[in-house]
């Protein structure tokens, strides 16, 4: 099986996000980037499928700070080839990134044809598009999003895929391959790779660096940012203070006052 995984970095929200002085972008001074969570799951799913069916996993990522660590970790986890698409340095919008991926996949040798293209279902900064459906559209491949399970049939012609709805309901789909899937969660949580293995990968393997294509104006972000700000805290809970027993009796008092107990 030939599986491609598309990865992007997003701002790490564990750090306090600050707005740049122009009020339209994030301040990058203390900004740290982290692999988009569902992209991590997409990589894990790809590795699981490779372990099950054999084949190759190729990872492509748009360049961003700290992306090299992520790519070496992917190699240490079992990816066969990792490709970094330079340019933009983390500032590409979702739409731009999708066009960059689609263009690169078609132009760069040795990537297509693939049986499966996996990427995360959605990233926290996908303001102007979604990668999975857009790449599917540009490559004229079927797309399904919010995927939590992939079972590849004989000959890698069809995959039986589970998609998550609400209320715990899932839909079973037959997807003809090749296809693009937006992964919500891998079958198992992303595996741990020890620091020593990542360091070994750094010494023994390399990242293929490719220049990003020049995007036509029509393929750039079509949105204009008017303003970016931190949300006003519109409401806040009334805080109850004290030891657990005191707080509990206060709470019970409130509940019975309102006739709720």
């Amino acid at each position, binding site marked *: 099986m030939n599986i491609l995984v598309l990865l992007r970095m997003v701002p790490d929200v564990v750090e306090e996000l600050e707005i740049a002085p122009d009020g339209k972008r994030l301040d990058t001074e203390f900004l740290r980037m982290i692999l988009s969570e569902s992209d991590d799951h997409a990589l894990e799913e790809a590795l699981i499928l490779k372990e099950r069916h054999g084949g190759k996993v190729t990872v492509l990522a748009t360049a961003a700070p700290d992306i090299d660590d992520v790519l070496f970790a992917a190699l240490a986890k079992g990816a066969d080839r990792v490709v970094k698409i330079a340019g933009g340095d983390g500032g590409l919008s979702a739409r731009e990134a999708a066009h960059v991926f689609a263009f690169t996949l078609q132009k760069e040798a040795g990537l297509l044809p693939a049986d499966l293209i996996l990427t995360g279902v959605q990233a926290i900064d996908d303001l102007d598009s979604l990668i999975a459906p857009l790449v599917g559209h540009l490559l004229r491949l079927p797309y399904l999003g*919010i995927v939590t399970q992939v079972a590849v049939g004989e000959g890698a012609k069809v995959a039986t895929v589970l998609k998550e709805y609400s209320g715990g*309901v899932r*839909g079973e789909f037959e997807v003809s391959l090749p296809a693009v899937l937006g992964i919500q969660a891998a079958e198992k949580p992303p595996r741990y790779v020890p620091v020593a293995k990542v360091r070994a990968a750094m010494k023994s393997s390399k990242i293929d660096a490719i220049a990003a294509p020049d995007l036509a104006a029509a393929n750039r972000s079509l949105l204009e940012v008017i303003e970016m700000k931190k949300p006003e805290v519109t409401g806040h809970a009334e805080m109850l203070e004290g030891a657990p027993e005191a707080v509990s009796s206060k709470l019970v008092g409130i509940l019975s006052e309102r006739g709720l107990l």
Partner: protein
Amino acid sequence: MPGNIWVLAEQWRGKVSEITYEALALGREVADQLGVRLEAVLLGHKVKDLAGTLGCAASVFYVDHPMLAEPIADLQADALTQLVKARKPQAILIPLTNVSLGVGTLQAEQLGLPVVNFCKDLRVVDGKLQAECIMYGGKIETTVTAPGETVVIGLGPGARPADKGRATQAPPVEDVTVTLPEKTGVRLTRYVEPEAGDVDITQKDVLVAVGRGIQSQDNLALAEELAAAMDGAVCGSRPVIDQGWLGLTRQVGKSGLTVKPKIYLALGISGAPEHVEGMKDASLIVAVNTDSQAPIFSVAHFGIVADVMDVIPALTDAVKSKKG
């Protein structure tokens, strides 16, 4: 001549989703401000009767096609594109839900239109639409505008109260035909229901919701005790269900259930948007978390900064002694 405001009415398994009414409420407001019509688009197969609930819109375009019986993003986008091409609306509000995710992106790209995701509000400024979007898991608000005549809006939950989008009068319905391929690369074969749970948490008045702060499966028993003392049920946020400590039917949130109990105790839950989506309309929300900065405290009515495992036993005792 500026186009109308459209709402893609999301229907799934025979029901129109709540977020559709939220979108209609918002669309109506914006359409009125712009002086244009609000129109709804209903896609499906043999679901014309659902159009009757969409009275908030001035009219409904009903597209019936066997291939639209189940929501497949490629097909819905195809159908929508044909309508958009013909009638050129100014904005199309498409719910950002599991059912409709991807439709907006695909439809927009087919016509080279801009898309705005994570939208939580629309405003009209100088006759142009501005979208207010909530990004980075709720941490940043971005206001954007898009050039061109048509914009596709991916609408998040909670933009307007759903009740404002409900109407008693049925709207006029126009049947529209579209051409769709006979075969598609994506085909729904069946729905997989979660294992039947003993309890329907959407019917309970009191819910004791547990999150990561419960720390271990063993501690669930204490939460069960508290729930029992309050005649309620235990439910959980996604991490607890992913760990297998509670079944799928107890999950509250975007991929779980939406609940509106009288009391919702959020214990050890941080308040990620995907969870809040499922419980924000509860009448009384009390949150307990060790992190005073946890987002849940912006949603809750009352908050306690403490270790969940300290509060649960104390609260159980207090409830029991109050009840006598």
